[in-house]
């Protein structure tokens, strides 16, 4: 459970390769991207939509969209993971928009946080305090935390996903962590 999210490896090759090789090479590259990013995408999406069923639906939609667009990926415009997370972000935000138009769903952040049975009461309490602090963050701050620590993206990739400069992404991330720590310290 305490698995540290690892940065994906070996998916930095182009998804498209050349036009002639495109179908096969793109399929293989996409398969590698899928295998290395499946859980990361789910973690990121779940932290955005904060609902397990919706997170599964959005994750599946994101991969479906990415698969359809795999031949249109331009490696000159960024990393494949940043491209994939950009698609996942749009899918998640579309889901949030849909929710906004329909009935407001009440998501319970605790649903997404599992606490191992063997943990001590203190550790469990700290984790719940952290989850509560996370829930109190602004959605944009929570998104940065999720991209960095749940999905394991580098600052440059985060910048590409949210559409800011790399230094700006680092600054915002630092502020979010500081704010989260303050929130947790206050609770503990």
């Amino acid at each position, binding site marked *: *459970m*305490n698995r*540290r*999210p690892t940065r994906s490896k070996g998916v930095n090759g182009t998804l*498209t390769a050349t*036009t002639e090789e*495109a179908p096969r090479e793109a399929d293989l590259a996409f*398969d590698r991207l*899928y295998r290395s990013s*499946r*859980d990361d995408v*789910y*973690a990121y999406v*779940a*932290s*955005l939509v904060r609902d*397990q069923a919706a*997170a*599964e639906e959005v*994750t*599946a939609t994101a*991969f*479906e969209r990415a*698969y*359809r*667009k795999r*031949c*249109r990926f*331009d490696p000159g415009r960024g990393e494949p993971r940043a491209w994939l997370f950009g698609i996942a972000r*749009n899918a998640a*935000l*579309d889901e*949030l*928009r849909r929710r*906004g138009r329909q009935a407001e769903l009440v998501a319970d952040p605790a649903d*997404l*946080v*599992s606490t191992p049975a063997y943990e001590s009461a*203190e550790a469990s*309490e*700290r*984790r719940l305090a*952290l*989850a509560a602090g*996370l829930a109190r963050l602004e*959605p*944009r701050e929570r*998104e940065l*935390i999720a991209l960095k*620590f*749940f999905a394991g993206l580098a600052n440059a990739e985060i910048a590409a996903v949210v559409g800011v400069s790399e230094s700006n992404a680092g600054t915002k991330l630092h502020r979010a*962590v500081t704010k*989260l*720590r303050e929130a*947790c*310290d206050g609770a*503990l």
Partner: protein
Amino acid sequence: MEPFRDDNELIAELRALRPEPSQEFSAELDERAAAGFPRRSSRPDSPLTAPIARLRELSPRRLAFSGGAVALATIAIATVVVANGGSKSDPGGYLSPLRPSERPSALSHSEHRDGNQGAAEQSSGTQYEAEPPVVGATSAPSAGTAASQVDTGPYASKAGNRNVERSAEMVLGAEPADVASDAAAVFDAVHAVDGIVLSSSVRGGAEGEAGASFDLLIPSAKLSDALAAFSAIDTVVTRHEATDDITAPTVRTGEQLRDSRARIDGLLVQLAGADSDEERAAVEAELRAERRHAAALRSEAAKLGRRANLSRVSLRIETGAAATPADENGANWGIDDALGDAGHILAIAAAVTIVGLAIVGPLALIALLAWLANRARVRRGRERALA
């Protein structure tokens, strides 16, 4: 309970909070990945769903290639259609360079007029000289007599209210043995349309030497019939036709003639009321001058009438190499013609492209603006959803 010692401890704890997908979901997603992520849409597929999905899957480069190929094919097809349409409406269509017999070629106007003047001299005293037939017919439809004379005369030929002078040149190819019979057929055809043979020459001999030439006046109204009859006599090698609108000089001469007649009438009245011999002599002198002027105008009007009513046709019958139509041996079709035709085809293609852009451009611009507006709306909505 102790707070976090440092950021590293917080981050480590944070990573432990990472949401993990359920095993069922992971397995299901893996299956879908293996199957190429089939669509899950519950909406019924329309006939356009599959093509649109295929288009969306194309890379931009392939899409550009496909779009370019479709555009080129469209331009090529439209060019062929337009060019063929043009060749039908225009007998001298540029896509039929090997059919010069159908291509109109303007004759020299000075040559033409000289010829007609000659014709007028040779045919002086015939019925065509009797009355200036077309004066005032165009600009003054109510001019009555003159107009009705033109429209009902034996050689009335005007298309609408215009006075048009027409001429033609034709070369027929024949075997030496057929020259005499072809020449006879030419005479018959001329007589059949009430035409006039101004001059003719028939030469016998071997191939290349034998031949005939005719200088003809054909009633303009029957020119097409006459040319069709000539074409049926033997192989048409070349056929050139030309037209010249002489409405303006005809109208001007008619107006001047009416003015002159009015002045003559006035002078006659003045003469009748003259009180002295000196006055009478002066009016008579003026009357003579005006009558000369009126005569000159009538002559000019008659010439113009003949030019409109009678078409000059130059017809030759050739034997030997000159009797071979260009489209049979291609000898007369060279680099210049090829370049000309290529230039013309390119011009048509450019015109088709411009017209196509004029039609498609605004539509594409509207579609682009709509797409950009929708994209901006969706982006704003997404950003608001996160706020």
